[in-house]
């Protein structure tokens, strides 16, 4: 039975994620850890690009970054693809730097898939998918965005994750 997490989005509804513990054990364990610690509560979807993805779990309103733990092993070679409505770990250029931030694909983003175990080919690790509240994701992808500080594509009105809970 795959674990499920609900993201309660302020004023928008609930997005339910089903996590693939078998194919992405480290990413799922890492994600659940942040959920249970309450890390995601009060964070925002800070980078929203319609037709691409919505990214969150790293910043509070005002673009204040929350501290996180260290990077985890990249599990993008698990066979799961960055298809529409899948959830994957965000990271820096370092393939094994994913910590708390995640993103929900709003298109089939083949170019994010694992190609090779090299810095440029590693890809982004998919660890679950949206099984409830796809309509909420569809609303979120279309919100108006702008520049905040040096960050682009930031929703003009904060999209806040009130709480993330294991169900």
């Amino acid at each position: 039975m795959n674990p499920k997490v609900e993201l309660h989005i302020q004023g928008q509804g609930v997005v339910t994620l089903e996590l693939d513990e078998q194919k992405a054990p480290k990413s799922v364990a890492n994600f659940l850890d942040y959920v249970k610690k309450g890390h995601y509560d009060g964070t925002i979807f800070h980078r929203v690009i319609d037709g691409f993805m919505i990214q969150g779990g790293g910043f509070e309103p005002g673009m204040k970054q929350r501290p996180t733990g260290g990077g985890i092993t990249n599990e993008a070679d698990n066979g799961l693809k960055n298809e529409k409505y899948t959830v994957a770990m965000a990271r820096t250029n370092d393939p094994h730097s994913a910590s708390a931030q995640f993103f929900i694909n709003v298109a089939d983003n083949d170019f994010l898939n694992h190609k090779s175990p090299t810095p440029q080919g590693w890809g982004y690790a998919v660890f679950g998918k949206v099984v409830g509240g796809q309509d909420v994701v569809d609303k979120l992808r279309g919100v108006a965005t702008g520049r905040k500080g040096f960050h682009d594509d930031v929703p003009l009105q904060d999209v806040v994750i009130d709480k993330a809970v294991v169900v």
Partner: protein
Amino acid sequence: MECISDLHLQAAHPATFQAWRRYMAATQADALFLLGDLFEAWVGDDVIEAGGFEAECAEVLRATAQRLPVFFMAGNRDFLVGERLARATGLALLQDPTVFSFGERRWLLSHGDALCIGDTEYQAFRAQVRGAAWQQGFLAQPLAVRQAVARGLRRESEALKRSDRVYSDVDTAAALQWLRSADAEVLVHGHTHQPAEHALDARHRRIVLTDWDAEAVPPRLEALRIAREGTVQRIGLA
């Protein structure tokens, strides 16, 4: 012909500069295409008069352009390269995109940033800073002011690199539209730092150049060599 892009040359990365200098001195290409972001930043052609790193780079360009034709296309970092540098070095400036007829094929050359149309805010920014009005305004400021702006942008860029951004890619439909309009089969571009070859449809493909970093493990120093018969090879220079 050979193509390179995304070297992001800067004084703080001497190893990459040295590798580039060696490559420019040694290449036996009939023509060399610099497809954008050769420089990490370029605040105006007058920077070469200040001596220093940019003047060194200009000298490398000048020496190479004496041996073979060198074509320069701006990227999103060095779009303020202009006529003055071209005259001082012998570079030929190219518009983005440019079609190059070579052998039996037409090659569409681009930096690639204009094709990442998913990034709508970047495209709005790009439209603004590629405009004559903005550029005249910026270039009218003293060099020291422009260099301070560039330093600020570099700090932001470094901060963004640490911020786990997921980047979008070149849009397939847009790339196909460009290729059809240009009656070209192959698009060659950089910008995304994701070297690969993508079949766009039965007739069209796009080839992506690597970025350069001599200090990466393994080092990324590579040119794309295109032969007259149409074969494409990645030449490692490490």
